[in-house]
């Protein structure tokens, strides 16, 4: 698309029928989303201002006489409502906080030991290829010699690219809270939670700010009681850090397009439990397990041990797992019951639960990093390293890089043009370890599109050759990665099972496939509905429009796969008699899985589901 095709007026959101004057305000820097990347950006700005608040470069142009007006708008109801527990090398984070003491951040711990385990299938329900089954048989037979224990084979050697030492185990919720409180004490920036941003404001070549979501509207976006148009926040610089499924990021991608040859086609859904293990647990804080092979070969898993007997344990369900009946919650329940994990977890209590989409295209999905009046940072800017499976540290660092670039431009009195941002921000990023890592990781996961074993081989190849070698692959759009339903279970059979005993679709699918029923204990193994109410309870402010929209009802009605329902992390999408899934905003955790778990596309690239800006979601601070 050429620049001339771009809209010259603010992007309309759910067009309100009534004519009212839209409220507007001006700031110097408007930011969308508060996560690690925005934390890095705002920390860099705040520190520079605190060091020299009288520096004229910090004088506001939007409010003369005041310091720089920096506003950050976050969708969720609290800045700690992150949904990720991570293990990170913390290279960039430590560079910002050289004296960082993990004890100051709840749930943070230094990494002390790392293990990589291949998990055999003790149940027999896992969909394994003949070759893999053969390999499993050999492993079992040679188990005593190779040290196979509890249906798990620990790799005697871990490739360096998987090492996270010396790094940290973190709860992103707690990390955000820790960073956010320091920022607010700093006094320069304002972080507004519960404020979803609907779209960027475009003007020809430039982004001129952010438009907040309308309130007081019906589910369909029509004005209702207490209608309040979303405010336009105009800014000299708009910083976009709203993550992989953020509405602002995607609007910019749609308007400006991606660089030639780039596309966002690889995704994964990370879902995890936070479990409090018994007092006599042998798991030491800072212990990290990476697993693969179970519950399905394509599903990678993890176990991170935090202080205070808290353990994050979870799985990643990738888009390249072609099965249309992919699901997460029940898989996670089977995962924690694997004999290698269960002895450590079985007497534990579920404290919290969460899920989020990970944008796994890496360099292949990198957008234009900046343009006139805007810059992209964090996961939504393609910073996640898909070889090392690391994203938080990279995201933080891209924020710091933009912060340094903005300071340079402010001090030089230069405007935030595409050229100036390219010279300052993009150059910094391209010369950094983030970019080197992204280059090495660019094609590391290609092999998975040819199968599990070729995927592992491809990762090893790319990792050991530092990205010089990789397996070539054509990566189709996410909707085409979902196999046809005819090759798998017939949805109507499963739906009948679902209707017959009132269970959710994903649960029925797993049972139909031969996975044993979960023996609920009301403490750790609980129904999906109960998980929504434990620890990280889900809430949504009334008065916002539905943020999950089905573009073409006909495609939904004809759809046999219904992958969006099976993969919905919060059971917010359910079957309806009409054929178009029913959406309950109050149960949505904003993981964004529905965005890429749709087998049908009205335009050949994107699925049939639109994921807009919305309020609410998980309230867990432990994720």
């Amino acid at each position, binding site marked *: 698309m050429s620049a001339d095709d771009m809209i010259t007026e603010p992007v309309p959101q759910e067009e309100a029928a009534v004519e009212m004057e839209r*409220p507007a*305000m001006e700031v110097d820097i408007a930011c969308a989303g508060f996560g690690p990347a925005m934390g890095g950006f705002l920390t860099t700005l705040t520190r520079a201002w605190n060091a020299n608040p009288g520096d004229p470069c910090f004088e506001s142009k939007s409010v003369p006489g005041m310091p720089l007006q920096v506003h950050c708008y976050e969708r969720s*109801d*609290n*800045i*700690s*409502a992150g949904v990720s527990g991570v293990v990170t090398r913390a290279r960039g984070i430590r560079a910002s906080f050289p004296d960082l003491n993990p004890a100051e951040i*709840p*749930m943070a711990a230094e990494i002390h030991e790392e293990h990589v385990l291949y998990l055999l299938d003790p149940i027999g329900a896992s969909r394994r290829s003949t070759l893999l089954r053969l390999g499993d048989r050999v492993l079992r037979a040679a188990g005593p010699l190779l040290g196979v224990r509890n249906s798990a084979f620990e790799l005697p050697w871990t490739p360096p690219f998987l090492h996270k030492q010396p790094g940290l185990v973190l709860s992103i919720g*707690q990390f955000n*809270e820790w960073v*956010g*409180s320091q920022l*607010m*004490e700093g*006094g320069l920036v*304002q*972080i*507004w*939670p*519960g*404020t979803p941003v609907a779209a960027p404001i475009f003007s020809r070549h430039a982004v001129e700010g952010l438009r*907040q979501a309308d*309130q*007081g509207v019906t589910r369909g976006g029509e004005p209702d009681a*207490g209608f*309040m148009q979303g*405010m336009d*926040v105009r800014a000299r610089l708009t910083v976009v850090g709203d993550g992989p499924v953020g509405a602002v990021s995607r609007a910019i991608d749609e308007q400006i397009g991606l660089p030639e040859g780039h596309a966002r086609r690889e995704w994964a859904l990370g879902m995890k439990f936070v479990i409090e293990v018994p007092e006599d647990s042998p798991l030491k804080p800072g212990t990290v397990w990476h697993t693969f092979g179970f519950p399905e070969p394509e599903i990678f898993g993890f176990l991170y041990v935090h202080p*205070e007997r808290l353990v994050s344990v979870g799985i990643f369900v990738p888009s390249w797992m072609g099965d249309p009946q992919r699901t997460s919650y029940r898989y996670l329940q089977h995962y924690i019951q694997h004999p290698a994990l269960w002895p450590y977890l079985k007497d534990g209590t579920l*404290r*919290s639960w969460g899920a989020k989409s990970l944008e796994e295209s890496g360099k292949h999905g990198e957008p234009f990093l900046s343009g006139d009046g805007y810059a992209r940072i964090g996961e939504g800017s393609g910073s996640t390293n898909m070889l090392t499976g690391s994203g938080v540290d990279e995201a933080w660092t891209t924020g710091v890089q933009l912060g340094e670039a903005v300071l340079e431009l402010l001090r030089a009195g230069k405007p935030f043009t595409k050229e100036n941002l390219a010279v300052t921000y993009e150059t910094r990023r391209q010369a950094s370890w983030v970019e080197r890592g992204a280059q090495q990781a660019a094609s590391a996961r290609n092999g998975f599109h040819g199968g599990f074993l070729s995927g592992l081989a491809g990762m090893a190849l790319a990792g050991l050759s530092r990205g010089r070698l990789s397996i070539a692959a054509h990566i189709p759009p996410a909707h085409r990665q979902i196999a046809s339903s005819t090759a798998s279970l017939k949805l109507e059979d499963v739906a009948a099972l679902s209707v017959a*005993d*009132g*269970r959710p679709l994903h649960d029925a699918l797993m049972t139909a496939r031969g996975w044993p029923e979960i023996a*609920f204990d*009301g403490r750790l193994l*609980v*129904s999906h*509905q*109960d998980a929504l*109410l*434990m*620890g*990280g*309870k889900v*809430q949504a*402010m*009334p*008065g916002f429009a539905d943020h999950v929209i089905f573009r073409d009802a006909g495609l939904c009605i004809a759809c046999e796969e219904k992958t969006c329902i099976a993969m919905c992390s919060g059971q917010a999408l359910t079957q309806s008699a009409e054929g178009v899934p029913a959406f309950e905003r109050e149960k949505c955790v904003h993981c964004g899985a529905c965005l890429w778990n749709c087998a049908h596309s009205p335009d050949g690239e994107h699925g049939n589901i639109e994921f807009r800006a919305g309020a609410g979601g998980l*309230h*867990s*601070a*432990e994720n």
Partner: protein
Amino acid sequence: MEELLHIVVCAGIVPDPLQTLEPASGPGGPALKNEMALPAVLDPWAASALYEAANLAAKNPGSKVWLVSLGPKAKLQQVMMTVAQKASFQLVAIDGPIGGFADAHATAAALAETIVTLPGLERERLLLFGGWESATRGAGVTLQLVGERLGIADQFQGVDQIEFRDDGSFEVLERIEGGKHQVSVCAGTPAVLGWATGNLAEPRNNPQVGMANMRGILPALQKARPANLAANGLRYLSLSLPKAQRTTRLVKDSSPKAIAGELLAWLQEE
């Protein structure tokens, strides 16, 4: 008839009730595990009082609303980023400990001392608002004690509605047993009203209201004076969480009568 009201809302912050709360023993006595790490919200009962105050002030032009809050400054600031978007008020911050384990008398003393020094506050126009309960560790007496210290005799608890009359008196609905309200008429201000839920929906987040409030909130936080809450010999002997139990069963082929019977039996057990 419009009244020129000076409404002071006493509202603390509490851990977001949606979080998992766990009692713990700290060096200074009972505490909640990782409480400083839990996201905080304005105490929901007191939040109702704030929304009612803002509504009352809007209906009576020229009236003013102060929000007096005692808590750790950093936590207060975070909570204010959300609360400030919902209603217009002037914040008066007192830097103090988080949580409800402080002695209610000491807390009331700190609040009362602050309220009497509020510039421009006229006692004869004063409505002292707050929550009649707390979402966490509520002593249930703090607001009354503040009223006592301010010498206000007219006190109402469990309030759901206030309606001013032409002669400056006002009618108050207080919750009583059996889901009913007691109707009282008060001759006029000053008075203390401990709010139940009121009748207003939670206001929408309005960034413009937030921006207007923020001009006063940041300076108020900067000059928050520390509260020295004396223990007054208070000692906690034990601590436990309210019973919370959730069990889910899938029930099929059961008649409504049977289900109702089971629910009734369960309620009787409770």
